């Protein structure tokens, strides 16, 4: 099983949202890392068939997904970003509705919906109206609906938004157990989520796929660029202005800064082991004002 994008470009008048993006995915969990406006949602919408690319092709098992849209949609699970549920539907009814749209047999749908609601921890509130759900509960419901048809390709756009740490752990475990022989692509701003569950990370910046690989390999690309240094508080403002800071910790009248910089930022700076968060800042430093 494979999902392949070849030279996919999406432009709106003179704005290029995706620029010649190509990659091939085999079963596994992929984390899409990108800042706001980097083209993540556009990419997901193109893969899910609700947005047409300007040029390029998307194939699933070497079949164009647009030419074989019915077949592709039957193996697709999609959690879009920012949608409103039907507030007067109960969680169970919403699941059954989506199950019907996915062409799942009524009896099987009931069983499957119940299983998934249990998995995401909504079994107790399955008969409550969605308008009474919290943001996190709605997000879990969204994740559950995407998995109803046991999809071969699962796309989750910001699935961890609104989830508390406990719910995020549950989500990560759910994805890990679900992902065998499946292609799971997810985007999130919470890089630790991706770090834990993604087999590979795709870095999308301003519509361009800048890099891809396992997090450990990507992190290696910025080895030597991450520093820690102690500064006195009166010099702190100058350091914050001059450098890309990934963290700052106050200790008395001194502050420990974690700095991302190709050159040594201060005489007493020591190189430290980079993290995925550092990588994110390195790629999206413009978003951080650098």
């Amino acid at each position: 099983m494979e999902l392949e994008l070849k030279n996919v470009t999406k432009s709106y008048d003179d704005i290029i949202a995706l620029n010649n993006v190509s990659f091939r995915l085999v079963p596994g969990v992929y984390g899409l890392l990108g800042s706001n406006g980097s083209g993540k949602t556009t990419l997901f919408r193109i893969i899910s068939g609700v947005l047409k690319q300007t040029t390029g092709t998307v194939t699933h098992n070497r079949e164009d997904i647009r030419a074989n849209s019915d077949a592709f949609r039957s193996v697709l699970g999609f959690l879009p970003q920012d949608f409103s549920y039907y507030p007067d539907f109960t969680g169970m009814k919403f699941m059954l509705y989506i199950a019907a749209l996915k062409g799942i047999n009524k009896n099987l749908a009931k069983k499957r919906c119940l299983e998934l609601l249990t998995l995401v921890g909504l079994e107790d509130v399955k008969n409550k109206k969605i308008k009474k759900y919290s943001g996190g509960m709605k997000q879990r419901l969204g994740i559950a609906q995407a998995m109803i048809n046991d999809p071969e390709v699962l796309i989750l756009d910001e699935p961890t938004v609104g989830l508390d740490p406990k719910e995020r752990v549950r989500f990560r475990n759910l994805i890990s157990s679900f992902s065998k022989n499946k292609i799971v692509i997810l985007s999130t701003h919470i890089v630790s989520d991706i770090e834990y569950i993604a087999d590979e990370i795709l870095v999308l910046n301003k519509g361009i796929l800048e890099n891809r690989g396992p997090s450990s390999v990507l992190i290696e690309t910025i080895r030597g660029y991450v520093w820690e240094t102690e500064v006195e508080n009166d010099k702190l403002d100058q350091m914050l202005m001059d450098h890309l800071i990934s963290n700052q910790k106050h200790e008395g009248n001194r502050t420990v800064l974690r700095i991302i910089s190709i050159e040594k930022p201060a005489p007493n700076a020591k190189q430290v082991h980079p993290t995925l968060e550092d990588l994110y800042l390195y790629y999206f430093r413009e978003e951080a004002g650098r």
Partner: protein
Amino acid sequence: MKTIVKYEMEKIQQNKTFIGALVISLLVLAGILYIGFYQAQLYGIDRNGVEHYHQVVEKSTGEFNDQKVKEVLTNYIDHYQSDNVDNRSFDLFSWEIANTFIANGEDVYDQMNNAMKQGDKLTIDQISIKSIKEIGFAEFLEPLKVGSFVTWKDLYNVTSQIFLLISILVILVCCLVFSSDTSRNMNPLLLSTKLGRKQLTIAKIIAATFFSILVFLSIHALSLGAFFIYNGGFTGWDTSIQTNVSMELFKFPVELNQLHVFGLAVALQFIGLLAIVALTLYVSSTTRSPFSSLLIALGLFLLPKALTQLIKRGPIYHLLNLFPINNYPVKDFLTLMSTEKEFFFDNFMQNMILTMVVLVAITIIFNFAVYQRMKQYQET
């Protein structure tokens, strides 16, 4: 498919706009029925009008000829001159006949009043009555039949008014069907499911159409129920439409009774409603918010009426008369469709069939357009 239709129906029913619109519509319907049937002219001043009307109708029902007209008028002037002025029930049936057949309709009341003052009575022979031929009533192989008509005219008025109510309610509901999902940003989710483009679209069309039919039938059933009580049954159904002198359709060229006319009016409204549903669904599928969808759909519904104020002759005027807003009042469609000047053919039934065919074509075209649009829908 049945399951999806069921969910789509539920989505409509649970929509707050629909619930609000339904409550308001029921209040408006109650108002239309109350004013149309229970505040009708027939009740007269002392509320005994309906009873008296039915007594007169019972005596007057039958073949419509000059003799029958004379009998009705004889009874009318006798009744007028025999009763105490203060207790006199208003006989609307005979009054309408008198208005049509007495040469100087208004003078006769002065003459009767003067005669009564002098302790005398005006007789039918002293009044100049026009003949059926003189007025120009249409003639067919079978003679025309006269019977209860005032109540039927009230039914036609109510039927016309409730069409506007039904249309607005249906537009309000149908404009939500697609645009509501668009405004909720649900399309990426729905349209990426296996059945989300074809079956879901068909299910939405079925649900909206079924719902509209349900509204149409329920409101007409309520109206007919109210009419049944008001009219004391369906008496007068077999009366020729030409003898419904309140409507002044003496020369109407087709042999139709009042039930036929009611049936045709309901059928025309029904097909018009299907076209309105299809057009509104199309608008809903092209807009991003229910409100803009509502404004556009209402605008399109009313536009032909506005245009006929500007264009009063010619083929475009004829085309505009095909739209429901221009032919929903019962008297209007009977009048418009019976002449080539207002419509396409010089034959009522041909014009009626043409209108229905055009409306069915509009329904099919727009439903198909919705299907195609949603099948190929792309986010922008």
